[in-house]
């Protein structure tokens, strides 16, 4: 518990640094906020009034600390474009992306774990050959192309599943899953390919190690050797990769979200950048950074579960 608290405390400087980085990067993007939000027809006085209203005429440092001060009191500010509270926008968008991330991850695991294990154990066999082909294809085939393919086959031709029409899980679980299934598969296959390769090579390495040979010498059967002894050790690097994967997905599902019309978090960030809605970008990235910190913490805690030899160190 103390470890968890310490880790959380240590993440504060990271978040601060991240927010400064994002704040400065955003302001390096050309394109004046007032021009983009108000449009070309707006008069110069309208633009000035806009800047004054939103405090954009103040020095950058002042703007940053004003924003930070509000954030510390839990206020992420209001969107430049339509004045909706940023927190509300984030909460509207986050559930869909979290669901998509979890779904993608489940699809990836369902494919990657069995094929990864089989191809390592039966190295050079039919399964190994086939799964290597799959992995190569999965990684090379762009997920947007796969998405279009799935839509054309399952939504347009067969009409089994809709091409869009996201509804929250809490409102209509069946309708929700119908819409989310295709996008989960479209991104899940790619992630599965990555995880599968990772698991295979890690497992192969462990299977070649001394202690596995000892286990085999003891006369344990293949199943026990692989599942009980080798797999656990092989999972540590896979876990690291999976953590990174999940973290990456939270912001990296923009394309899938766009193609399937899912109101997700990635789209919020990208659309806000287009509209120069900086305050929304700042808030959204801060929240996603926080999520990444939490995911990393979870991964580190899982290490201990998977491999009891790992002790949570006292330091950072």
């Amino acid at each position: 518990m103390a470890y968890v608290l310490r880790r959380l405390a240590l993440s504060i400087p990271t978040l601060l640094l991240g927010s400064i980085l994002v704040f400065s990067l955003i302001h390096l993007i050309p394109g004046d906020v007032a021009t983009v939000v108000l449009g070309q027809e707006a008069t110069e006085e309208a633009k000035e009034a806009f800047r004054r209203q939103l405090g954009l005429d103040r020095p950058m440092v002042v703007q940053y600390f004003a924003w930070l001060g509000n954030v510390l009191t839990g206020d992420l500010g209001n969107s430049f474009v339509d004045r909706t509270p940023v927190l509300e926008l984030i909460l509207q968008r986050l559930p869909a992306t979290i669901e998509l991330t979890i779904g993608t991850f489940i699809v990836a695991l369902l494919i990657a774990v069995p094929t990864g294990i089989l191809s390592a154990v039966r190295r050079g066999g039919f399964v190994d050959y086939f799964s290597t082909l799959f992995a190569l294809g999965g990684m090379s085939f762009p997920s947007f192309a796969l998405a279009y393919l799935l839509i054309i086959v399952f939504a347009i031709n067969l009409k089994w599943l809709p091409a869009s029409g996201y509804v929250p899980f809490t409102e209509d679980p069946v309708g929700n899953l119908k819409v989310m299934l295709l996008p989960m598969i479209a991104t899940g296959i790619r992630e599965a390919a990555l995880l599968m390769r990772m698991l295979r090579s890690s497992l192969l390495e462990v299977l070649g190690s001394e202690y596995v040979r000892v286990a085999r010498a003891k006369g344990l059967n293949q199943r026990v050797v692989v599942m009980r002894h080798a797999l656990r050790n092989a999972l540590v690097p896979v876990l690291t990769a999976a953590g990174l994967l999940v973290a990456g997905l939270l912001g990296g599902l923009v394309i899938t979200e766009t193609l399937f019309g899912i109101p997700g978090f990635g789209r919020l960030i990208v659309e806000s950048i287009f509209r120069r809605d900086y305050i929304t970008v700042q808030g959204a990235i801060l929240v996603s950074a926080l999520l990444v910190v939490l995911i990393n913490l979870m991964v580190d805690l899982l290490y201990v579960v998977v491999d009891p030899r790992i002790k949570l160190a006292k330091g950072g």
Partner: protein
Amino acid sequence: MKLGTQRVGVWLVLVMALALVLAACGGDDNKGNTGGGQATAGGQATTTGGSTSGAANTAPTADPNAPQSEATINISLNADPPSLDPAASSAFVDRQVHNSIFDKLVDLDPKLEIVPMLATKWDISQDGLNYTFTLRDDVKFHDGTKFDAEVVKFNIERGLKEESPRRNELKSVKTVEVVNPTTVKITLKESFAPFLSVLTDRAGMMVSPKAAKELGENFRTKPVGSGPFKFQERVTGDHITLVRNEDYWRKGFPKAKQVTYKIFTDATTALNNLRSGQVDFTDVLPPVEVAKMQGEQGFRVVNEAGLGYQGMYLNTKKAPFDKPEVRKAVDLLVNREAVVKVVLQGTGTPGHSPFAPSHFAYGESDKYTPPDVAQAQQLLSKAGASNLEFTLKTSTGNTELAQLIQGNLQAAGINMKIEQVEFGTLLEQGEKGQFQALQLGWSGRPDPDLNIYDFIVTGGANNDARYSNPTVDEQLNLARKESDEAKRKAAYDKVMQVLHEEVPYVYIYHQNNVFGMTSKITGFQYVPDGIIRTVGMNKQQ
């Protein structure tokens, strides 16, 4: 356990990098200036001698006797409307939703004539300074409050506030006077021919004063109007749901029970959803799909000339375009037919003018000619320009057009480089004059003044080319104040003759409005301002 912090850092950088990459290659509105403002009706100000009156007859759309239904019409929009409040709106796409929620003082019909809406008739004084509107007496807002002359005063003054994007369209207004509950008189500072047509768009939309006062800035996410549909729900970036206004003043309208706008920023995704049935109507189709779709059973395509234009600004204050001969040479080299055929796949009309060919202001000098390499070379050598080189800035969606122009110019030995710039950045660089050539168009308005004045007049807000010519300014101001159509056309003809010699802007084509719909949709009537008027639309089950 230092890993954690490092990973956050790396990840943050990645997110930003991704966001920036996407920002750099994302889709823009090909229609041109998103600063898309008002639709204004063109040239209907047919004052002859006395005063002009609007007659109370038609309003666009279908058969009032057709039955109402329980249908929901799903319409896809290519961008999320930033503001549902007309007084705070600066994007074209906003107008699609506004037109279902709000009524305007006057409307446009398919022939671009101005027709009554909330105003049943109007009188314009001979000097063009006083507009007296007679208003409907049977209109209620969605919140139950009544529409009257006070409401008009409130709304016009709201649009005149300094922070409103409407101010620019309304700045000729001096006073708004309530004569009686159904009569309002608007007095202008100086005669402004496009004024009535400005009121066919956001500047003439009437919002509920009660709701606007109570909600303040939140009005833009909770709009209250008197239109055929009431606002129900919005999930930003995903959809906007409107339901029928059962007390709508036009008896028997609207036809459908519900309209849902769904946001699809990708045209192919919108098309997929049209095909799979999640969407009944799309506001955009990928050009390559238009011809294919036209022959397809179960679908209908509208591919009609709009009011806008596309082309490029040539910076008259920067070499090599500080010489008019060089600008004219570029104008002579562009192959407009090829642009429409190859780049647009027929979803546009070749052009050489800010006015669409069907428009009264369109004149002889606006006709385009095939490329003339010999004459262009002559002009270039006269200007002493050899080995000419320049950079065209273009938004990321329009690279094919740029590449085609690049090939056209090569014929006369001009080497054009292409620089892709994200749309918001392009607007800023245009405004600041940080370019040699810049590809940026205009979504178009019904009145000619609003398609040329600010773009060409000395110091105009959209005069990115930094062009200045006193004769042209004089004619433009004349046309702006004159209400007689023939006299206005004569002035525009003079302007265009000069512009075709001096070429601050190379007009290339008029973009079409392209809509796709399933054949279940009935009652859609095309109006060249590109607005999807939902009031008469229905869906067969």
